[in-house]
């Protein structure tokens, strides 16, 4: 419905298999944000959903050449601009 249909802002937890996006904003305390930086989790970085742990949570994502697992409580606070919303299942 926006001007640019390709720019959909969602929570990281909303990304599913095959979906990726660019980190837009992180709503976590500064200390937590600082920590996430170490793993390449900061605005501007590309991130791609990888898979879920057998019990559904944590989920893993590909960012900066590495695969990292985040609990949904953390991933929920990370907002991404989704790259190809038309690929959504």
């Amino acid at each position: 419905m926006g001007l640019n249909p390709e720019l959909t802002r969602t929570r990281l937890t909303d990304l599913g298999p095959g979906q990726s996006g660019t980190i837009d904003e992180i709503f976590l305390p500064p200390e937590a944000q600082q920590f996430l930086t170490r793993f390449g989790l900061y605005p501007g970085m590309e991130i791609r959903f990888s898979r879920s742990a057998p019990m559904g949570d944590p989920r893993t994502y590909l960012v900066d050449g590495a695969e990292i697992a985040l609990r949904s409580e953390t991933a929920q606070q990370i907002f991404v601009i989704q790259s190809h919303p038309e690929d959504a299942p």
Partner: protein
Amino acid sequence: MPVLHQISPAAQAAPAIQSVALIGPPNSGKSTLFNRLTRLRQKVGNYPGITIEHHSGTLVMGGREVSLIDLPGVYSLTPYSEDERVAVDVLSGKMAGVPRPDAVLLVLDATSLTRQLTLAAPVIAMGLPTLVLLNMADLFARRGGEIDTLKLARELGAPVALVSAVEGTGMEAVERFLQQKPGTHPPVQLPVLSGAAERRQWAAHMQKQAGFRPPLPASWTRRLDAMVLHKVWGPLIFLGAVAAVFQSVFGLGQPLSTAFGDVLNTLGQQASPLISNSFIHSLLLDGIWKGVSSVLVFLPQILLLFLFIGLLEDSGYLARAALISDRTMRSVGLNGKAFIPLLSAYACAVPAIMATRTIENKRDRFATILIAPFMTCSARLPIYTLLIAAFIPERPVVGVLLGTRACAMLGLYLLGFLVAIATAGVLKSSVLKSGAVPFVLELPEYRWPTWGSIGLRLVDRARVFLQQAGTVILCVSLLVWALTNLPLHNGQPPQLEQSAIGRVGQFIEPLIRPLGFNWKIGVGLLTSIVAREVIVGTLATLYGTAPETHSLPLQSALQQDLSFAGAMALLVFFAFAMQCTSTLAVVRRETNSWKWPAIQFLYMTALAYIGAFLVYHLLRMFPPVF
């Protein structure tokens, strides 16, 4: 706008590079490179006044020795953390006792260069000649990554080389770099970057200039993960791996430990006739040798456990195990990385506590260290089996499958586990509450573990166990021996009752009578501070029976001297109490203070006392009918 400034050429007229510092983010392969460069000629100590280890070594290149300082892994040089402060202080020559290095080797993981390159700006800006090493070049190339190192070097104003610390490629670049004279480094201009966002922008720009193409995710790791993290197969593989480790540690480790114990025993007996003086005989064999071997017998099991932890860690499976168990561990306030250490604690708390090093969050790590000794370790089994055999009649509970004795044993395992969980819950909601730092787990690529790396760790862990635990255990063994053999009675060692330790046992009897214990049990509790299973030998001596464990005479002697309620109270006491000098010594080493082992000892002893008290009185009020 970034301000440009000129960097002064480093240290003036020194003849050639004498010392070089190694810096890089954690997991950049820095330690592997350090080991490769120094070929293990290294020293480990602590920086004065802080908990950070100081690694230094010597590397030989072109027939010349250069000293190498390994700095702690850091993500930036903004001195927020102790690690970063140490790095800044050493690089600027402000660290007491560490002369300023002549040059810097900056190690970055080429496969995650986007974020790792942000460290380059502040490090190069320190003004020392710097060689940038893009490590893991083998993986980087295999996964289709590309970078023009010459262009990157021009942008950074510092030489850049692709290396692989694991495979040992690219080391000639280090050699060439170290042959230069310190003053010959050309002055370069770099922007001064104040904020993290600016550094990231700068790094992104550098990458673009150097034609960086990020590597693709490792395809066979992803294929393997599809299986290992599968909804159905994942947990099954996980349980299979855990069962295999345990089966080996107990099935293989227990007999090995027994055999090793026999060897130690035989050695003692061989030496026995060589020592004529009875006093020295007793001191050396009964005091030192017996005490130290009672702890040494655990070495095979500990090493076996380390071998498996090492295999799990180096292959990359450990992170997957943490991912699978995170959901469960979270319910007690811990994270998935605590799972394997706690599991190891069922064999022995010593390797378990050392294995907590993989938990980066300090509070989670300390909580794990504090609850690990509640897990039923193998040193508790001798006293458990002795008391259960002596006091619990064998009756079927679930047909032929499960009897009363097996139930009692399982109950003790469960008891330790529940207390550990409860303790973790209390700690994590109070003193060790996690801050804002979220749980992030990196899933490394699967790799074949190398014998070199695992063997190295085994040697290191064995040395720590022998040195750290050995010195303390030696002292405690000597003390127990002295108390057992003094005061001399007509020049002869006294009967245990008249010995100092016997008197201490009698002295504390009023204190332990409410638990249903007599002074002999009290002496057993005192001697078993060396290691839990020592109580069996002590009781055998006190009751004048053959020293073999589970011996029938000892069982009947105990049956006459100890009530059923008292025996159950003693079991509970051993389930909770911190009767292990090695664990205390290792906790001290890992937390670098006596504070935590002291708290742990007091807490566990208090819990043991209260638990035993309650069990004794409850069982006296409501005696069970078998």
